[in-house]
């Protein structure tokens, strides 16, 4: 299990005004008091807008970057005191085409990275074949990477990230720049890794559907602070956004209209009626999902439902609301002032 407690990272940035101007030291609180947990087999999402602090968090958890304060442990190993041990059991996969040798073939790349983890030779060849199979690069395995397409390079990156059979895997925008089909395949891999291989996975992504589809639990990070957590659907509902129901019926009697108004009043729903040439459409928007109650009214009055559409709140909207704010949203930032920028000479 991975447990992070109150991680903070302050970057210090030296800046100079003009060519010979005085140097100022700017401090940027990139990650502010982040605590999170990942159990084996879980896929945890870390979502936030650009510059929210996702990559910085991942760098700390992979023992690449030392936290300014806070602590974390993976399977009981203290991450601050034993970074080398942590490096053995985690790995990071980033989007893009870096972190592989373009002049080597896929197989040579994997052999090299596996050796950096000191894996025994006899195990190596089998597991490399298995990895190549997993990312579907078997046929291209002996071709130099520079001749690969973007998607192939990205898949090789994934194989690279699995080369030490990590217990925890951090995916930093892994589907960046991939086409729809490959991205989907990758998501399947990720799910497979969690479900079948029991790996704990931390995923950052800008594609909300990806997070909705994969994540068991999501942390929303903004300006370095965790501002909301929950399952994808909890988060979508938690921002107090409405579920919209659109239904069309052949006709509308005043009795039905009255009944609909009544439930709308109870649930503070917004209602609109629109009379078309052949039917009447009704739209109801409320925080709760009123489909059941509406259907009950219609059927008990003998009205057939010609068409029904339910638009549930989406995580994407929730995230936009959370990150860019909105008057109706209470942001969970009581203990977390907005990111501090300090400048000292």
């Amino acid at each position, binding site marked *: 299990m991975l447990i992070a407690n109150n991680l903070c990272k302050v*970057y*210090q940035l030296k800046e100079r005004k003009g060519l010979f101007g005085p140097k100022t030291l700017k401090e940027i609180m990139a990650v502010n008091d982040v605590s999170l947990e990942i159990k084996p087999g879980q896929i945890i999402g870390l979502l936030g807008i650009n510059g929210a602090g996702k*990559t910085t968090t991942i*760098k700390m958890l*992979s023992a*690449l*970057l*030392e936290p300014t304060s806070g602590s974390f442990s993976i399977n009981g190993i203290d991450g601050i005191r034993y970074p*080398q*041990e942590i*490096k*053995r059991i985690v*790995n*990071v996969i980033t989007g893009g*085409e*870096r*972190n*592989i*040798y*373009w*002049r*080597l073939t896929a197989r*040579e790349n994997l*052999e*090299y*990275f596996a*050796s*950096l*983890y*000191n894996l025994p030779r006899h195990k190596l060849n089998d597991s490399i074949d298995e990895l190549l199979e997993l990312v579907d690069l078997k046929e291209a395995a002996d071709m*130099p990477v520079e001749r690969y397409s973007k998607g192939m390079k990205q898949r090789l990156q994934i194989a*690279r990230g699995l080369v*030490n059979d990590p217990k925890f895997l951090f995916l930093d925008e892994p589907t960046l720049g991939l086409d729809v089909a490959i991205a989907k395949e990758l998501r399947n891999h990720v799910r497979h890794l969690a479900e079948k291989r029991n790996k704990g996975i931390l995923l950052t992504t800008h594609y909300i559907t990806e997070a909705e589809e994969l994540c068991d639990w999501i942390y929303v990070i903004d300006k370095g602070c965790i501002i909301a957590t929950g399952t994808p659907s909890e988060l979508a509902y938690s921002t107090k956004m409405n579920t919209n129901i659109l239904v069309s019926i052949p006709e509308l009697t005043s009795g039905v209209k009255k009944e609909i108004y009544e439930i709308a009043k109870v649930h503070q729903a917004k209602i609109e009626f629109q009379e078309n040439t052949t039917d009447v459409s009704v739209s109801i928007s409320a925080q709760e999902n009123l489909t059941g109650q509406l259907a009950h009214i219609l059927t008990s009055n003998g009205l057939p439902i010609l068409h029904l559409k339910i638009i549930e709140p989406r995580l994407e909207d929730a995230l936009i609301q959370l990150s860019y704010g909105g008057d109706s949203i209470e942001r969970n930032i009581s203990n977390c002032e907005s990111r501090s920028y300090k400048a000292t000479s």
Partner: protein
Amino acid sequence: MLTTMLATAKRNYYIAKRVFPWSFIVQRIVIGLYTVLFSYFIYHYMFRGYLDSRFETYTGSSDYITYTILGVSLYTFAVSTLMNVGRSLMNELREGTLEALLLSPCSRKGYFLGNLIEQVGRSFLEFFVVLIVGWLLGAKLLNIKIEQLIIVLILSIFSFFSMGVSLATVMLRTRDTYITQNTLFIIVSLVCGISYPIQYLPTWLQVISHVLPLTHVLELFRKVVIFGDLLWHHWILIIKLVALSLMYLLFGFWWLSRVEKQLIEKTFG
């Protein structure tokens, strides 16, 4: 460490097999030959074989051609090793693979050693090309004792490797290879006694000569080749050389661990 070393050597071998670093090799050999020829012409045509009397006092020999050729060939060997080891991490940074390397628990010693052993053959090639051309120009090389030479070369590799590790750190720190390497090579070629004894230099420059291991390696190399001396006669020199190299080595690794951290702190995204 051993696994990392072998894997890195193998990796570099594959890369070299695909894109052989011809340009660097040719460049270093040409510079070596050019320096040899330059000294040869100056000596024969400008000074008409006349040597300042101090030369013999300083070196114990009046054979200027052999003196220079030994200097230049070992210099070529040094530059080759220094470039290959020194630029290794910067190349990783440029090719975007440094992060993957730092992400792994791999041993830096193994990494550098791997870089070293893969290129040793090519460095020797450059060394011998310059030496053979020098021999054709009249350097006296035939009374070398092979086993003594081999030990000198092993000591050279050790000391160039040590300097290479420090150089790698400097390059990573300054994020530059070009200016750093050329500055270093100019300094080395001026103060290490490549084509004239360091005693000709002002005393303050000689201080720099003494902190550069190449000066001592070169002295040993000449003692063995020109005078056919046995190495154990020069054990003080050897201890000095090894101690100095060790300092470069330890300092390089110590500093590298700090520079790596700074580098990660300064990398965005």
